């Protein structure tokens, strides 16, 4: 749980010894590529911190088409916050694009964090607002930006995903067709390739 330990220290302000105590009873779980951590209709009871690997959260529309909401590579947290907080059935699926090792985070664990770390509430609020900021920007880009602008934002946010995720999934995340994504990448290459 190396990455999770660093996350607790750096992002949530815990000391090394607090982290060691907290993680004594915690275990990671490794799931295979294609396995689900959440399926539509279930109540999401955990968030999932990614130690190693890559998760995807997506929704299905009425035609059965997948819409990728978020990728979660190492150090990201996946989970349906709405389902967790409001205790309602989820609209989403979370599955593994690669073999993935995750740490399960539930409310009792967060309560424990709040008990041992006086900074936890403030730091957690910061993370929550950072998440909201990200979601707002994503809505704005989907509504108002060109496909190329969305692609350029995507590679800033996820610098090493292009080599890990099939093109059609990236296209789905960007809300464009795989053909459009190819066109954008070809146009960028025409502009930037020196070879």
């Amino acid at each position: 749980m190396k990455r999770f330990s660093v996350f607790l220290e750096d992002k949530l302000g815990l000391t090394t010894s607090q982290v060691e105590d907290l993680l004594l009873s915690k275990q990671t779980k490794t799931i295979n590529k294609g396995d689900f951590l959440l399926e539509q209709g279930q109540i999401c009871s955990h968030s999932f911190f990614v130690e190693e690997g890559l998760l995807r959260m997506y929704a299905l529309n009425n035609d059965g088409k997948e819409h990728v909401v978020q990728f979660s590579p190492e150090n990201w947290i996946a989970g349906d916050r709405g389902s967790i907080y409001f205790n309602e059935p989820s609209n989403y699926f979370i599955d593994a694009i690669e073999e993935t090792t995750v740490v399960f985070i539930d409310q009792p664990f967060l309560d424990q964090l709040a008990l041992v770390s006086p900074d936890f509430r403030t730091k957690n609020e910061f993370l929550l607002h950072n998440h909201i900021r990200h979601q707002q920007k994503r809505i704005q880009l989907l509504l108002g930006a060109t496909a190329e602008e969305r692609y350029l934002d995507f590679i800033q946010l996820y610098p090493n995903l292009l080599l890990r995720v099939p093109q059609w999934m990236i296209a789905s995340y960007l809300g464009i067709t795989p053909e459009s994504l190819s066109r954008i990448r070809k146009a960028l290459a025409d502009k930037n390739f020196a070879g």
Partner: protein
Amino acid sequence: MKTKNIEIVLPPRPAHYVGDGFRVHNFIPSGFRADMQRMDPFIMLDYNSKFEFPPSEQPKGVGVHPHRGFETVTIAYQGKVAHHDSGGGGGVIGQGDVQWMTAASGVLHKEYHEEEFSKKGGFFQMVQLWVNLPAKDKMSKPKYQGIVNEEMGKHELPINSGIVEVIAGAYKDTKGPASTFSPVNMMNAKLNAGGKANFNFPSHYTTTLLVVEGNVKVNGQEVALDHFVIFEKEGESFEVEASENSIALILSGEPLNEPIAAHGPFVMNTQEEIQEAFQDYNIGKFGYLED
């Protein structure tokens, strides 16, 4: 001259697929004591041991992927590979031939079983080796050397022992055609049963041997088919004797002794350069190639 002894003999690890066309055993960097630092300047060696692919209308292989910072050397023992790259290059690596691709600043390429081979199916056997580039050459212009078998240096061994086929560097007075950025010797010892050959390399070079056909004795010690020998970095000379008609791939290169930062298809000197490689790949600096 002192004998160069075997440090370790590695059996082939369980095979895995690269794409759907290359069924390989990895020796470098995942083999025991075969990490990139120890094997410097050789940073990756995948070995597709002899494997029969059934006929396939759709050629099997590996789709578009980038490389930066090193050279890929593909040695085709059996079967044929077709390749294309984002610089507009392409061609076929025929049986017995070698393709030496200097990825350097970066290319996208894809590799598939050649169409006719794919349709007929048959035995496929190949080595893909990555040779690291010195820091000063990592961002040089990409290039290819297609080396057909006839161009290789052929050194006839005495008393009908066989030949040494030199791809790069030299065996005695016979030179190989490949140009390299740091001293690298690469050769196939094609020995008849009972045939012997002696090899000499500087003691500090990283020196290995892979048995791709038959089986051999190295300094008197049996080394079986598909096994990989790593030599000690002491002594200079060793002897290979074929127990039956055999082929051994021999590699010996001078270590670069530079820091290695590696992430998937990018092998650079620092983490910053790796991040830069990802960014450059994302914005098309490697060009574009249709899958």
